[in-house]
């Protein structure tokens, strides 16, 4: 497991844990970000926000949020 932030470009991971406060979790839940979903990194420049693909959607996640999402790399 590692924070989403450390997943490289075009890598895929399964969300295992979402740390952080209620507000962040609520927000992520509403957008489909829950434990068990598969996400793919569309863009990770190692600074600035990430772009991830989640289902049909594309989300921008700030560094702070991306550090709170723990994923298991699967490909």
């Amino acid at each position, binding site marked *: 497991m590692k924070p989403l932030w450390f997943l490289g470009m075009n890598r895929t991971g399964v969300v295992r844990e979402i740390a952080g406060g209620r507000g962040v979790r*609520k*927000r992520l839940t509403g957008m489909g970000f829950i434990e068990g979903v598969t996400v793919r990194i569309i863009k990770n420049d190692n600074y600035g926000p990430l772009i991830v693909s989640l*289902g049909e959607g*594309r989300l921008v*996640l*700030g560094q702070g949020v991306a550090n709170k999402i723990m994923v298991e790399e699967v490909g």
Partner: protein
Amino acid sequence: MEAARVLQTGETVIAMAGNPNSGKSSIFNNLTGARQHVGNYAGVTVEKKEGKLIHQGKAYKVVDLPGTYSLGAYSEDERVARDFILKEKPDVIINVVDASNIERNLYLTVQLLEMGANVVVALNMMDEAKEKAIHIDVAKISKLLGVPVVPTVATKKQGMKELVVRAIQAANEPKREALKINYGSDLEKELKKLEDIISSHSQLSQEYPSRYLAIKLLEEDQEVYQQVKAIPGTAELLEQSEESAAFLLDETGEDAESLIADRRYGFISGVSKQAVRKRISAEQRLSFSDKIDKVVTHRVLGIPIFLAAMWLVFQFTFALGDPMIGWVEGFFEILGGVVGGWLAAAGASDLITSFIVDGIIGGVGSVMVFIPNIVLLFFAIALLENSGYMARAAYVMDRFMNTLGLHGKSFIPLLVGFGCNVPGIMAARTLENKKDRIITILITPLMSCAARLPVYVLFVSAFFSQYEGLIIFSLYLLGIVMAVIMGVIFKRLLFPGEVSPFVLELPPYRIPTLKATMIHMWERAGIFVKKAGTIIFSVVVLIWALSVLPWGVEPGSKESALGQIGSFFAPLFAPAGFGSWEASTALIFGILAKEVVVGTLGVIYGVGEEGVVTAIHQLWTPLSAYAFMVMTLLYTPCAAVIGTIKRETGSWKWTVFTMVYTLVLGWVMAVLVYQVGRLFGLS
């Protein structure tokens, strides 16, 4: 229209709910056409859009709820939407679902159904789903959710008729049962305990669907918790809910909120498995939008592309808008002349003529000249938003904005502020976090708007004509630097600790429709025009009155009330090098609208705007001129901006705070410029 009025009481209310970017607004526009009204929900800055739908000679009220992903009271938008559904009890809710991204959109649907709302689903963007090779069995979904589902393509107006028929039909049917998702034995046992208590409490069971309330309490929803607490006789219920939540955490190792969300998504994936077929898995496909994003969000190319886009926006706004300003000016001049003629013919006194022609028509006219720029700027922004680029701009600018403790979305209001601070402050609405929004609103007036440019041009041509570009650029830059500094200070002092999560959806690129763009534009421009009629009008009248009182003085002279106030404040500005009553008076007039500073100096020096350059050259020094430009840039924003801040923050506290801090900042910087300049032997 007549029919609409008769139906005012007991009229059927159709609410529209859906995710952002689901095409909800397009459907709302299709249903209501031009019969729309934009207001605010009481006490919050969330926009309330209402419209009228006419079907078979009957009028129906359509309320467009704010776009939300969930109804969890995460943001003001969600709270407003939820309260409306619970308290106003609309007869039917049209839930717009993006068919090309169906799983995530159904999360909101499920919550609506759990509330027992009377829902009709508009399965929108069927064309995009088809393009993505997603096949949806509409009848199956309808059966699984237990509500009517109508496939639509809002941009092509497909499915609208059926949607209306189904919605009205549903509105007339008896209320349906709330959806019951099986939350598993652990949760269900606790839910049952809570439901039993709720059912035995008459007020609670009347105000809330009991299972819905039980779920909300288990989720530890603070908003609902407080509402329940305010009702007498609910202590037992709240105690039980806390006990149940603690028990679940102990038993499963997860909080009830996550368990509930998991089950909801479980239900949704069950629906999707039975009714949705995808040929290519989403994770494997690189869409057309992704290909554009490879370039647009590129770490090196992203910023120049963004700057080029902004340059185009400003070219569009000002190159096209400036000639139109002349038309507006001409219109108010002619209007003033005509009305003045009538008044003279009717034998009105000089005072009344001056009040109406100079005060009202001239004053409102001086604000209305911004209409062309504002309309065009809003048009350009609506184009950027509707095409999907705005979200990318926020991504690109996030790094820079982080240094201010804000995130990428705050950049848009600041940028718009260069055109005019009013729409800039209004654009801060897109920020979900209230603190981010307030900080952004507080610093937006430091962006050098187009109205300040004429003041710079005047002083530059008097003293610095060789360095015109450089001097003006330095002022724009100073505004940005001050905004950064103040942003950091406000974040540290006023809202310490809080870093709001930056989560933003990147909608697929779409070709914006002219209709949607126009509607978007008129909504916002209309608010500006309305404001000119109220707060700006009062300020105009006040300043005019000060300029002609006391009775019989030369209007705007040193002896007038305004001139006296100017003289009174003049010594205050002596350390900044412009301690004359003329300068102070011009600054006071400048609060009406910044470019009025130029006209005021013209009037006071008695030379008109043409001779004012010569007059300034004789009476000022380059250093005092620069200090005065700094003051004009930073000090108290114009009346239109003040009114907008009041409207957007809903608070006099923040409004007065902005007026005062900008005044202090302007003074300090002007004095600093003058005194440091003198130290270096400039004068």
